[in-house]
């Protein structure tokens, strides 16, 4: 081939100019391939390779969809669990520690929980969410498309705590400083106690081992709906576990039904009525404010209303009966009644004697106890000072002594009242039969009232314990989670696949056009060798 020299200044090849591809081969002379012919071949083969292009594009578009189906990420559903009960108020506890009496007066000791603590104020153990009883209850009665064991389920549940705003900011600030190689910040980060909000996130991931073949690598998948329902049931079961563990659902003790005016003597009935109403009143009064404020939907009454009713009956009706019984010595068997009181008095006095002995002993200990003495001195100064500090044991003795005094006072009150009753019973002239009968009727009426009060309080508390105040210790949001639409998830890969397919198709097309040129080259090369041989022989 000959190349015509290109006229200077012209970039375009002239007509009949050949563009050649020079292929260097170290073992032979330079080879050249005419690109024009290659492009011509490509043009000839274009009809076939149009289909090849369509095929490669189709493969490029479909491959990501197939890969997506094979490697699809399992669905994960999550829900936020928020705690809903009263717990020790952190502000109140803080004020108590600081000794801030002014602030203590304005704060309630209990408040709706704001941190991740139990109703007793202890850190909440979140492992209960994945405990066997909770998961068992969640799975019980549920018809799943595939069986899931508790162990497998536990492994797919994650519980994440949520830091409070303040702790988050503290951690963020200290982390930034720690990253800047600030050692003090790093130490503070280690030491700072992080606080967590009264909510946490529970996540359940699909894809469980087959309980029938635990070693199998094949995972079983529940449907999306089943997964959501399962997480919902787990969180419901967790709430039930919290209620069972922490809800104080004790009903009042029934001392009223033991009173039988037909079988018991009047003094005994009067006494029993008084004690039963006092105990019922004490039960109601020890309930927290939120419980006392609840109004029954059946009666419209609150526990405060019942407290007032008990006080009314106690002071107006029962005291009235009691005073009459003792003032008039109303008893069907006065001797036995007096004997009962004397026996009781003896027990009370024996108890009082024990308490008084305890008081005396503790008093001696307190008098002779020597507390620790602390000396403090400074290097720069020659002087030193000392102070006494009370030990924990000493404080316990003092607190115990105070309790002894209270117990002794209560016993003395009961002794004095019993002695008073006994004295009046023995002093009073014998009551007539008519008076006894009237008092008996009145006692029966009082017992009936007491029973109605007790039943009313019991039903009120039963209704309260069945209400959301006592059955909902945690609320959770609906489990949420969606798998991404398969087209949307694969779109990027489909575009890359299509481009790759097009590139591959074009490459194949080019190679297919190039191949004939190599083959033609080989066919032209043997005649050239023969010509060279002939020339050498002639020479």
């Amino acid at each position, binding site marked *: 081939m000959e190349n015509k020299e290109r006229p200077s200044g012209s970039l375009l090849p002239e007509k009949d100019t050949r563009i050649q591809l020079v292929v260097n081969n170290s073992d032979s002379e330079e080879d050249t391939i005419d690109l024009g012919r290659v492009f011509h071949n490509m043009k000839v083969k274009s009809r076939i390779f149009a289909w090849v292009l369509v095929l490669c594009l189709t493969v490029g578009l479909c491959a990501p969809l197939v890969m997506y189906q094979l490697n699809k990420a399992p669905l994960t559903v999550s829900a936020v669990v928020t705690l809903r009960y009263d717990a020790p108020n952190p502000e109140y506890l803080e004020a108590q520690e600081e000794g801030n009496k002014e602030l203590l007066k304005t704060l309630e000791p209990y408040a709706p929980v704001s941190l991740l603590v139990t109703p007793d104020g202890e850190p909440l153990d979140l492992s209960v969410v994945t405990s066997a009883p909770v998961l068992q209850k969640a799975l019980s009665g549920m018809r799943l498309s595939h069986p899931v064991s508790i162990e497998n389920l536990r492994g797919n549940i994650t519980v994440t705590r949520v830091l409070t705003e303040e702790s988050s900011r503290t951690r963020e600030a200290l982390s930034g400083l720690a990253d800047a190689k600030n050692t003090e910040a790093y130490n503070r980060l280690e030491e700072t106690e992080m606080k967590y909000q009264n909510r946490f996130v529970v996540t359940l991931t699909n894809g469980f081992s087959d309980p029938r073949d635990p070693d199998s690598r094949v995972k079983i998948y529940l449907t999306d709906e089943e997964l959501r329902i399962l997480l919902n049931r787990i969180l419901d079961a967790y709430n039930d576990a919290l209620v069972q563990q922490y809800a104080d659902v004790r009903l009042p003790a029934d001392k009223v039904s033991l009173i039988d005016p037909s079988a018991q003597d009047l003094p005994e009935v009067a006494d029993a009525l008084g004690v039963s109403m006092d105990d019922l009143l004490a039960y109601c009064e020890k309930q927290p404010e939120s419980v006392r404020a609840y109004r029954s939907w059946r*009666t419209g009454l609150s526990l405060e209303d019942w407290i007032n009713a008990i006080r009314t009956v106690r002071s107006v009706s029962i005291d009235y009966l009691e005073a009459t019984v003792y003032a008039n010595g109303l008893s069907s068997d006065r001797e036995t009644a007096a004997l009962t009181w004397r026996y009781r008095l003896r027990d009370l006095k024996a108890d009082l004697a024990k308490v008084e002995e305890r008081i005396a002993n503790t008093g001696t200990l307190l008098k002779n106890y020597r507390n620790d003495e602390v000396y403090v001195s400074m290097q720069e100064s020659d002087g030193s000072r000392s102070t006494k500090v009370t030990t924990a044991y000493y404080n316990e003795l003092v607190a115990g002594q*105070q309790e002894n005094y209270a117990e002794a006072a209560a016993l003395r009150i009961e002794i004095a*009242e019993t002695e008073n009753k006994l004295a009046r019973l023995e002093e009073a002239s014998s009551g007539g039969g008519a008076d006894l009968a009237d008092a008996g009727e009145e006692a029966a009426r009082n017992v009936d009232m007491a029973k109605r009060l007790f039943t009313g309080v019991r039903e009120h508390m039963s209704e309260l314990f069945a209400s959301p105040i006592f059955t909902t210790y945690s609320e959770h949001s609906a489990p949420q989670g969606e798998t991404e639409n398969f087209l949307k998830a694969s779109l990027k890969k489909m575009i890359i696949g299509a481009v790759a397919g097009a590139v591959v198709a074009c490459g194949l097309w080019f190679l297919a056009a190039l191949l004939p040129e190599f083959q033609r080259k080989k066919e032209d090369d043997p005649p050239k060798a023969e010509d060279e041989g002939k020339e050498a022989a002639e020479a």
Partner: protein
Amino acid sequence: MKKTHWLRTTIITLAACGLAGLILAVVLFNANPGRTGVSSTIEFSFDGASDGLAPNGSRFDLEELTSDDVLNAALEEAGMADRYTAEQLRENILVTGVYPKNIVEQMTGYESLLTGDAGKVKFTDYHATLYSVTLYNDFDKGISRADLEKLLTAVMGQFRARFIRVYSVILSDEILDMDLSKYDYSQQLDMMDRTLIRLHDFAAEMSEKHPDFRLNGQGFEDIAVRYENLRTTELKRLSGIVSMNALSTNPDRIAAQYENRVRVLEIRIAELTREAKDTDELIAQYTKDGIIYVSTSGALQQVGSNTSETYDALIARRQELENQIADLNRELAEVKLKLSDLRGSAGSETAAPAEDAGEEEKDETAVKADPSVPAVDPEAGKTLVENGVASIAARREAITADFTAALQAYSEREMNEQTIAVTPVLYSAPKILSGAFIKHALKTAGPLCALGFMACLVGIIISRRKEK
């Protein structure tokens, strides 16, 4: 291969693959058809619903929708109580709250101060007000569409009725319905007083929560004022007459009660005073911890104080005893006054009330000194008291009737068909032409069609090459 030939082959191959995919989709769909059910929604829009609080101030819970009461009542209403049980329905009802998307991120996300997003508002707490309720037919696959719809409609209706009933505010006039005629006059008045206090407190509580409510121009505050007025005027006046004139059905008996009470109170005061004295001694001998504050100037100074818990507990107990003794003393003074009135003695026992005496005691003393309190003879007094008690009871009933009407109107305002809205039920069952099936068919037939198409292309390429 001619153009028409390969075009025809391609179309036949695609059609065959599509048909095969469709048949496979139908088979797979029927093997696992999905659940049939009816669904409805319930939305709460009364005050407090977004805080999870019912109109009566208590927390509400959709768990009650699956309670025995509601389900049994629904079965009765639908006439299916003999066919199904509440337990069967309960297992097949699904109740879910509707929450905003990404509620987890919204409630738990942290907005950094550094990125400037800290001002973004997010949920600190969220209660659903819209709930979706679905009843599946797994308890009886053969149940008809009409029956299933009827059942869920009955459940929703019964739940709404129960909700309105449970969370409405109602009033109970008398707790024990005691026969006042069995008691002495002072006791009757005491019981009436406590009832009026209870009703007044309830009206005041409603007024504080709902100050804007009015019925016929009257709000809860007005009702509270009426109760208080009845108590402080008529009842107090009657109490004064009874007390100052020692009116009683059985003076000896009531006197015995007062005397017994005085004895009991004196015993308690004495013992509590002794306990207070012992506590004082304990406090006196207790040494509080001191603090040494080390200053940098080199001198040691003792400054500030450190309260110990034990010392504070002793002081608190001392304070509590003091309060108890004061309360008992107050009651003792009142009972002694009543006793002296009953005995008719005017003297030292009726001296000026103690400084810490209650208002009632001061009022009684004032009444005693007030000549406007009429002196009545016993018989006339009894008639006066009986008429007075009847009059107070009648007026109380009138106020209570207004209070009850107001509570009912308030409950109806807060809870009605608009504020607790239930949507009509929708039936859903897996069908061949349903959206779920179409989606399923595309997912099944699509890959087959793609494979068929690719096979056709390979065929075309090969045939074109052969032609060449």
